[in-house]
């Protein structure tokens, strides 16, 4: 099968995947008790059951679940993701407003992860089983194990409250694309990028260590090539394949990975919106964000597969 056909096939498979995601999410949200109306009325002694039913019918939240799903699906197919019940805003416009914030933050974290992980991984592999390697492995394990909300809080405590270099709240009046924002991206970016950096670093180290044991490396060394050239020109290229595919898979976290971090850093992105949407049981918003994230994850995986094939011509998708 040619790569082109493979890509086409994978793109087509997005349709049933998203359909499945939408059915499951819609079902789950409706299985969880409460909807935006019960949020508005829950602790209000003035509200009788009939009042609540009246309100639900006014907002079109009555009727059986399958009927609500079909209506929703019909609207989505025409590009209408519905409204946020409590504020009347268009769901698409909410997502478009919040998305750049999330992508910029996620991208920063992703780049941070790569920049830290690749050199560290190389260094650890070259110095395998020595002190530096042990330290880097310990740091990587910690990076994976530390919950990112805790890391975020610690960074705020140290960076903003003790050292007073950053602010606790990002400057809300500065446009996202203002150069100064790069500075304020550092702490949340580190928080998001740490776990990614740790896993990439581990893959980098392992695959490089593996390559270093291969015969062509011995041959290159025997030929008298300087060690630097052996590592950077030959070994690095070959060991990057798995790192690149992992990094491509991790692009999914640019959209999906920042939920908790956005809350801790008061970052007005999609993740914070998602948490609020869940708390308020804003079904349309939950559905749209979930679907959007789903598309992004599928595309990130597709990208990883394609890169894998491009980087290693021996791989064929049958």
């Amino acid at each position: 099968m040619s790569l082109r056909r493979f890509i086409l096939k994978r793109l087509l498979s997005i349709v049933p995947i998203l359909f499945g995601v939408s059915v499951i999410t819609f079902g789950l949200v409706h299985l969880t008790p409460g909807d935006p109306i019960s949020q508005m009325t829950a602790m209000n002694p003035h509200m009788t059951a009939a009042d609540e039913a009246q309100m639900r019918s006014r907002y079109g939240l009555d009727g059986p679940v399958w009927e609500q799903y079909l209506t929703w699906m019909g609207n989505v197919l025409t590009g209408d993701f519905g409204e946020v019940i409590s504020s009347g805003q268009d769901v698409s416009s909410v997502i478009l407003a919040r998305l750049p914030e999330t992508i910029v933050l996620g991208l920063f974290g992703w780049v941070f992860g790569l920049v830290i992980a690749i050199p560290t991984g190389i260094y650890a592999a070259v110095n395998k089983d020595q002190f530096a390697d042990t330290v880097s492995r310990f740091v990587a394990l910690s990076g994976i194990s530390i919950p990112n909300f805790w890391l975020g809080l610690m960074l705020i405590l140290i960076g903003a409250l003790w050292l007073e270099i950053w602010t606790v709240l990002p400057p809300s009046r500065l446009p996202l694309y203002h150069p100064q924002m790069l500075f304020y991206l550092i702490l949340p970016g580190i928080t998001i990028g740490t776990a990614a950096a740790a896993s990439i670093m581990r893959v980098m180290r392992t695959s490089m260590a593996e390559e270093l044991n291969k015969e062509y490396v011995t041959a290159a060394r025997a030929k008298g090539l300087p060690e630097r050239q052996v590592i950077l020109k030959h070994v690095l290229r070959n060991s990057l394949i798995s790192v690149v595919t992992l990094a491509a898979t991790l692009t999914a976290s640019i959209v999906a990975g920042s939920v908790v971090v956005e809350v801790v850093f008061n970052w007005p992105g999609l993740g914070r919106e998602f948490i609020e949407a869940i708390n308020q049981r804003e079904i349309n918003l939950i559905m749209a964000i979930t679907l959007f994230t789903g598309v992004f994850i599928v595309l990130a995986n597709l990208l990883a597969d394609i890169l894998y094939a491009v980087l290693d011509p021996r791989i064929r998708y049958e």
Partner: protein
Amino acid sequence: MVQDHKQSSIDIDRRRLLQGAGGVSIAAVAGCLGGDDGDDDAPIHVQLEVNSDNDDRVQMVDLIATSLEESGYFTTEIDTYEFNDYTQRVMDPEYAENGYVPCIGLSGTFNPESFCQALHHSDNIGQCCNLNGISDADLDQMLDDARYGVDVADDDEERRERYDEIWEYLAEERYSSITHFDLQAGVMNTNVHGFRQNPFTESTFEYGLYAPQDEVVTWIDEDAHPDETDLSDLEEGGTLRGGLTEDPELFDPPYTTGANSTIVQVLIFEQLVVSDSEGNLYPWLAEDYELVETQDVDRADYEEYMIEVDADEEGVLDTDEQIVVTHPEDNPIEDDTVRVLTPEQAGDAVDDGTFGMQFQYELHEGIEFTNGEELTAEHVVATAERYENSDLEAQTYDSLLYAEEVDEYTVNLYAQIPDAEAERELPGLYIHSLEQAELEGGELDPGADNDPIGTGPYELSDYSEGQYIEYTKNDGYWLEEIGLESKEWFDGPEDFPNGPVIDELEFEIVPDDSSRAGALQSDEIDITYGLATGVLDDFEEDDDYVIDSVEAGGYEYIQYPMNVEPWDDERLRRAVNHLVPRQEIVDNVLNGWARPAWTDLPELAEENGTTDADALEENIRPHNEYDPEAAAELIEEVIDDYDLD
């Protein structure tokens, strides 16, 4: 002891195994009673329930459970649920049959009813918040008589006496145990001077910035400590930077229900009256108001004006009109058609002289909205119409019958029946400009390109959803124009300002508590509220911060399953109430940031809720004291009578 649901079930099984075959147990629907003839085993099992997402509440229930177990008479189990799951569970009318003891929190108001009616009136079974199906006809009558009827609508003292009787009745019957009343705390740095926290979150800034009824005005002064200044040091101008807990849903008053929305609206919109911190009312947009007439009218007296509308199985009525009154004999869920009064027929009834109460408001002349319109009676009527079929219809039409323009500056508001709360409830409308009174629901919002237009002291100048809200002072604020001396009731200092003195307000939206506390510490905001009690302690110990706290309307209670044996015996309920460690809950769970509920009435509702607060406490407190010995005596009697041992 706190467990999730799954663990709890396993726990029951283990306990049953331990009880052995010789155990004697009473059959109860909940399956919650058990015991055996061994001396160490407790005869009564209590299943407490609570929502898991409120740490304080969970800890509080844990303390109650520990106290019950320590008495030796109870085994306990705590089931926790996610909030939505929980509210749906406990508000199911069938819930009362389980025999569980739920814990929940409610927000009360200046109306004493909010501390007894919602919990105990049979009208509130299956809704908020008579969770255990308390149905006591005598109590229902007492609750109704304390609010409705000519006697109490015209006579505050009579009303207070009736509430005193209710508190005594409840102390004997003890269907529920209110544990404590919350405190509201505003936390600020020392730049903020004069600020006073309001009992209600939604009024935090409206009241704190300027409330001449309590001589409250806030100013900014970076050079002195608030402890060293008083009103004579007041400085005008400056910017107050606040931290809000949530983004407002909308700036549209009748289409929002949360405090996070109201808190930002009330700087722009005003009402006909204002309230001081004790709940006393003062004319505000109105120069004066009076109760013109009270009539002995019942809701059924509107029968001849009512129309019939169809109702579906869920109680949804087939009409687009606002339902002002539903015939008391009809039920939208049970009946196919119901008789209802709509605003048009309410107007007819008023024309014919059928109404419960008539209040007449004389508006100040010359009050301008920020779009230049002058406030007239037409604005009040148009506003009432915009509240029709809104998200606030249930609250609004709880009391309101009809709004009627008398002349340009005079408006009548009518109550459906004689109602002691009408004076407070009727003028609860946030008055709209005519330009915005016709807007569709939810359209009065910057998101729909309609910046809110009001008569209030501030104008919205910038808003970025989820990020910040900015206000500037309304240059043509009406009170600045006509002066406080136009308010006959004002007896404060002559040089008291005629409006808030701070020029700009900048509110950051920071849902996360620790981020808000951090922003205050790093001087990114000057003031915030809604912080956890543990954090409040840290700020209180620090001289660079000031906390102003006030007893608020929020309270927590557990409710006994009086429809299930042996809880139908008031002695058991009173006994358990004696084992509720109120002081310990306040000291250990809330770090002292609350007040034990020695009576069911908090300070803020004392004005209308008792003839003598001290006497009430003296009288009721012994019933609510932690007293294991009294509890043991009562339980022994119950055990004998029910043969539980």
